[in-house]
C-alpha cells in the first residue's frame, strides 16, 4: 500500500460521483453521488496526511470539517427535496424545468 493506491481509489470515487451527479435522475441519488465526491476528497486528505513528507494531523482535521459541512448540506438538501416532493410529487431532477434559458 502506498500513496498512489489511495490516489487511484480517490480519483475513481470522485469520477463515479461526478458520473452519478450528471447521470442520475432522482435528486436523492444525485445527493448520494455528491457524498461520494466528498468522500473521495476525504480519502485523499487522509492519505496525504498519512503518507506525506511529514506526518501531520492537518488532513484529518480537514476531513472532520468536510464531514460536518457535508451533513449540513444533506440536511438542507433533504429539506428542499421534501418541498419539491410536496410541490410536484416527484423528486426527478429532469422534471425540475419550470425555468429555462
Amino acid at each position, binding site marked *: 500500500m502506498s500513496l498512489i493506491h489511495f490516489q487511484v481509489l480517490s480519483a475513481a470515487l470522485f469520477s463515479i460521483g461526478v458520473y452519478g451527479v450528471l447521470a442520475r435522475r432522482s435528486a436523492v441519488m444525485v445527493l448520494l453521488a455528491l457524498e461520494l465526491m466528498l468522500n473521495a476528497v476525504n480519502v485523499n486528505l487522509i492519505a496525504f496526511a498519512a503518507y506525506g513528507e511529514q506526518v501531520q494531523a492537518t488532513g484529518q482535521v480537514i476531513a*472532520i470539517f468536510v464531514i*460536518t459541512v457535508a451533513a449540513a448540506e444533506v*440536511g438542507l438538501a433533504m429539506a428542499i427535496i*421534501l418541498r419539491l416532493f410536496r410541490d410536484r410529487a416527484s423528486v426527478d431532477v429532469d422534471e425540475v424545468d419550470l425555468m429555462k434559458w
Partner: protein
Amino acid sequence: MLEDYFRQYGLIAIFTAIAVILPGSLLVVSWLLSFLRIRPSKPNDVKRSPYECGMELIGDRWPQFNFRYYMFAILFVVFDVETIFIYPWAVQFKQLGFFAFAEMLVFILILVIGWAYAWNHKALEWR
C-alpha cells in the same frame, strides 16, 4: 511491521473462506440429497414467504417511505454529525484546558439553540 499488519488480513481471509464454504456446502449437500429423494419437496405459501415466522409482509419491495420520516432524518443527521467535534476534544480534554472547555460549551449552546428552534417550530412532533 507492515507485514504483520497485513497478516491480520490473512486471518480475516480464513474466516471469510470458512464462512462462505460452510453454508455453501450445506446448500450443495441439501441439493444433492434431493436427487436421492431423501429431501422432500412440498412447497406451500408459508414456506415460500421470505420470513417463515414473524410479521407478515405488507406491500412491495421498494415502498415509498412516509416523508414525515425525513424530517426526523434531517434533524438526526445534523445533530448526530456535530458530535464528531466532541470526540477529539474529549480525547484531549486535559491537555486542551479550560479555554477549549469554554469553547465546547459555546458550541453545545449553539446546538441547544438549534434544538430549541426545532422544538419550537414543532419539528419534533409527528404530524
